[in-house]
């Protein structure tokens, strides 16, 4: 590590805990983060089968408050936060005027006059600046709480059993994509039923300084339930199996939401103008130039980010993410390909180290907890 990097890398409130657990730490979006504690595969399987605990304190928490907080966000984002009821959440995106995706987000409506927008760590500053600019003229203010708010996720089928006894939030009645104010181990917290793993689970927002107390309470309970602390490595394989996009891979500034298969998130008919509307209206009516698909490898090899995809001799696209799936025990990938090559069942080829390896287009997600693969 060079001196410049040492100056800029930031620690979450749990940095000492990760080091004590023997985590391998990497610089991720300017944050020193655990990529794995012991084994990505073991951590992945712990979340699928039992429960896992994640430090996500690097993510951006942006509070938008004021009598026009909802309309201000409707202007800034492609979704319609005004349509949310109190205590509910929606997946959203913030786009550039040309329709390119600047970040994908979760928007929580805490109250009519108070929203929480959660941004990816890599884009948190950009989103914060864009929101501040876009809400000007509305009776709303932005409070960037990224460095005041810790975030711990507890994910997996046992997460409700682990978190339930430690919180006064009624988890059984907390719906998917809902959020409630309450306490965890007596500490003020926002508890949301959201996640990025394809499993049931919760995300717990707490004061930066109390994050370590929440972690110290939850980790022994997680371990008692057969769970593990989970690093970013397994977070990536879990989200990939669940067919969820990762900003920088499936989404970026040059891709519009329709190409990513996320057109349903764009509310062209909501009241008023929003940033990117004209470009996205045009994109919605035009034929797609590329489409995001799932691939399963039919030959030996693992497709990785950036590998070319061919239909016969024709270059049809590029792999955005790929790994060996710990659940399916086969190589899986997502890729952008020409729309004519996107039909499930189509056999394409991925170029891996100058060899063409056959791959089958499959419907996403690779893994659905309500319809798990036959016992393997």
């Amino acid at each position, binding site marked *: 590590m060079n001196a410049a990097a040492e100056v800029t890398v930031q620690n979450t409130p749990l940095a000492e805990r990760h080091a004590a657990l023997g985590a*391998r730490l990497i610089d991720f979006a300017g944050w020193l983060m655990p990529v*794995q504690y012991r*084994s990505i*595969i073991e951590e992945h399987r712990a979340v699928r089968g039992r429960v896992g605990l994640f430090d996500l304190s690097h993510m951006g928490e942006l509070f938008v408050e004021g009598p026009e907080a909802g309309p201000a966000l409707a202007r800034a984002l492609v979704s319609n936060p005004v349509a949310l009821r109190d205590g509910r959440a929606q997946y959203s995106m913030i786009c550039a005027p040309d329709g390119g995706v600047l970040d994908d987000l979760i928007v929580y409506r805490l109250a009519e006059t108070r929203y929480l927008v959660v941004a990816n760590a890599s884009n948190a500053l950009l989103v914060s600046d864009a929101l501040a600019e876009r809400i000007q003229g509305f009776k709303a203010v932005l409070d960037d709480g990224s460095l005041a708010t810790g975030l711990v996720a507890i994910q997996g089928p046992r997460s409700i059993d682990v978190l339930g006894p430690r919180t006064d939030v009624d988890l059984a009645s907390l719906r998917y994509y809902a959020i409630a104010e309450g306490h965890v181990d007596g500490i003020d917290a926002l508890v949301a039923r959201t996640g990025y793993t394809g499993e049931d689970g919760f995300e717990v927002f707490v004061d930066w300084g109390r994050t370590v107390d929440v972690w110290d309470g939850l980790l022994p309970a997680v371990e008692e339930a057969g769970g593990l602390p989970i690093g970013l490595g397994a977070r990536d*394989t879990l989200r990939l199996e669940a067919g969820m996009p990762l900003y920088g891979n499936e989404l970026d500034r040059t891709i519009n939401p329709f190409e990513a298969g996320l057109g349903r998130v764009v509310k062209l008919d909501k009241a008023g103008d929003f940033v990117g509307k004209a470009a996205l209206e045009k994109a919605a009516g035009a034929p797609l130039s590329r489409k995001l698909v799932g691939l399963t490898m039919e030959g*030996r090899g693992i497709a990785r980010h950036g590998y070319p995809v061919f239909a016969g001799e024709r270059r049809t696209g590029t792999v955005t993410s790929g790994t060996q799936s*710990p659940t399916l025990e086969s*190589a899986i990938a997502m890729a952008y390909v020409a729309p004519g090559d996107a039909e499930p069942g189509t056999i394409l080829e991925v170029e891996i180290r100058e060899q063409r390896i056959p791959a089958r287009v499959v419907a996403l997600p690779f893994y659905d907890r309500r319809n798990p693969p036959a016992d393997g």
Partner: protein
Amino acid sequence: MVPTDLRYTKDHEWVRVDGDEATIGITQYAADQLGDIVFVELPAPGKTLDQFATFGVVESVKAVSDLFAPLAGEVTGTNEALTASPELVNGDPYGEGWMLRLRVANHDQLDDLLDPDAYDALVAAG
């Protein structure tokens, strides 16, 4: 401390020479750094390798790494068990997780490799 009967490359391969035959793999340190190994690609027997030439790749869940031949020679065999069980490299890198056998072309090339003390020092220096 690494096994004392082996020689090492700076890229974390090991080689054991027995007469004209060399057996090659990656070190425990390399396997630990890679994490769960899920794929190993090795050359076909008969291929001739130069010293320090790329002979294959090893992939963990997250990363792809090239493998480098510690010595020049002709490939006489590969560890076919790694096709179905690449995790052998994590579990027993100096034994069941071996990768490649070569017919040694030039024994003098052993002098270009690290002895166990030098390799230990390399790993200790991070």
